[in-house]
């Protein structure tokens, strides 16, 4: 396998690289894969440690963790899996008593992670009808934020300016509004199907 080290793996997909790594145990392969997301990992670590140096060290530590872990576990989707590994690592580090702080848990600030598939939902014509209806079910702030963000393509800052809400609030309005819309659309679909 030595000759493969010098070959660039840029053309391979994540999945292929993962498979290749599992098979060969070649660090270079893992390195290639990790490089693709290292910046994001750094960002995540920054978020948790709020310190650049610690974050950098963490990035390397996480890489070390990957060496056996990726070998052992079945990983369908590398990116989210890596994200989770990074988060877990950071959280573990942060659990030292020294770092225990009580932070008020604001639900609206927590980013929901389950709306990844909304892209596909809004495609069909009939969905537009439902959408109109469901938009009506949102709170005013949510509706406004969602409309501004999605329908008018405004960025958060703009929306902040327009609505006068805080940046974080805007973000949470959009998040929640989106989730509520999704639920509403799904319920509508079910309702119609039940009637049939």
């Amino acid at each position: 396998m030595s000759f493969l080290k010098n070959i660039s793996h840029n053309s391979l997909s994540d999945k292929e690289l993962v498979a290749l790594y599992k098979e060969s145990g070649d660090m270079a392969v893992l390195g290639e894969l990790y490089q693709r997301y290292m910046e994001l990992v750094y960002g995540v670590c920054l978020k948790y440690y709020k310190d650049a140096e610690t974050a950098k060290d963490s990035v390397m530590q996480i890489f070390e963790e990957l060496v056996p872990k990726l070998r052992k576990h079945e990983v369908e989707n590398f990116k989210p899996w890596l994200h989770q590994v990074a988060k877990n690592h950071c959280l573990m580090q942060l659990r030292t008593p020294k770092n225990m702080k009580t932070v008020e848990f604001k639900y609206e600030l927590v980013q929901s992670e389950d709306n990844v598939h909304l892209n596909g939902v809004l495609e069909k014509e009939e969905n537009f009808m439902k959408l109109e209806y469901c938009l009506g079910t949102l709170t005013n702030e949510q509706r406004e934020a969602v409309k501004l963000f999605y329908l008018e393509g405004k960025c958060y800052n703009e929306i902040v300016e327009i609505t006068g809400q805080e940046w974080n609030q805007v973000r949470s309005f959009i998040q929640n509004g989106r989730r509520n819309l999704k639920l509403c659309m799904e319920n509508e679909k079910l309702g119609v199907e039940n009637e049939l």
Partner: protein
Amino acid sequence: MAIDNNIKNFTADDIEKYHKGVLSAKEMHELEKAAMDDPFLADALEGYAIAGVNVATDIAELKERLAKKTMPDGRQAETAKVIPLQTSERKNNFRLLKVAAMLVFVAGAAFAIYQFGFNKKAESIAQNEPVKATENKLTDTADSNASNTTVAAAEKVTTNEAVDQSVATDQTSSASGSGASIKKEVAISMDDEKAINSSPAAVPPVVKNNETQRAIGNVTEKKILGKEEAKAGSIVTANQEADAIATKDKTAERLENLESQKRSVAANKKAEDQNYRNQTTNIFRGRVTDQNNVGVPFANVTNLEENTGTYTDVRGYFNLTYPDSILDVQVRSIGFENNNVQLRNVAPTNKVVLQDDRSSLSEVVVSKQKPNLQARSNNNTMQLEEPEPSDGWGYYDNYLVNNIQLPDEYKSKPVMTGEVQVSFEVNKNGEPVNFKIIKSLCSKCDKEAIRLIKDGPKWIRKAKNGRTTVTIPF
């Protein structure tokens, strides 16, 4: 920004710009939207908002450190394990399996063939045993479509000459042999077999039905066979035309003879009922006519000694076999007086003339005798899909009346007390199948009714699943 799966991957650089506020609103929106769908990006976005981060240098540093880690060194050696690829093993296993499977399959196939062949042999041998020396039961010959069912018994013909000559005239095969080829062969062997004891049918029967032709053909063929093996018992019946021809082909070779006999045996279950003897069996041909020389259809011709017999075809012709050279029979048909005659096997055609029966010419009696014809003539719609007898309902009624064998209890009762109605379908060979008793009289009556129909004249099928009902008066 790298594009991976149509999703833009935002770099740290982009994020930095985002936080520095140097991105356009649209670009910001794009990043935000992506972050909506990608929690990873969202976290990172948040992280880079931290102050004191020099993104470019930090990232560069990280890359360096990573590169060091992935360089070949002692560390790598201990972490990189060599795990043997399992694929070849798996492939090997599968290959072995495939080979094993194939072997099993081939072995199984060979075994099956062996068994199959072996079984045939065994079957025929087993069949040949019980077929020894039983009396010639002509009426019991099953599945006889031909009006002349006697054919069956004619296996044991002695004549050497016949064989030699017919071998010469041997036709080649084809199961598609029709009446034509049989006829030809018949004609040829007829001419040659002058020294034969059995009566050659000098007059090829001119019959509408193919059955009789076939029967004649079979008779000849059986003669040929008889010389070779004298085991037959099998063969029989005009049914298996293909078999007959096959057997004809292989007269020269004993083994093949056996084979074909086996085949016909296997094909015909009632072969066991057939007799075979080692002595001569003679064929008696005849014709029953009325006083005006018109053939009497479906008249009953019975050998009183053995209580076996047959019925004439629609033109009055019949065949019987018997070991002796003369045979006493009783011929009867409705509307005629019974006639006891002596048949001679040497006669080309034994003529039997029936005298009209004055006593039973009344209308009432006649109509009672033809219930099926009556039923059909009244109701024309019935005829569209239901099968009908080859020679018509009128004659069929005659057949029924002439050839019924009343169960013993009935014989004592002179008056006809009832009827049995049987429904059945007709298969593509014109044979009645799938019998159902529609109206029952007594269990023996029902059985006799079914026997009558089964042994009776053939049918013409009009529709594939056409069903008809026949009434049999007792």
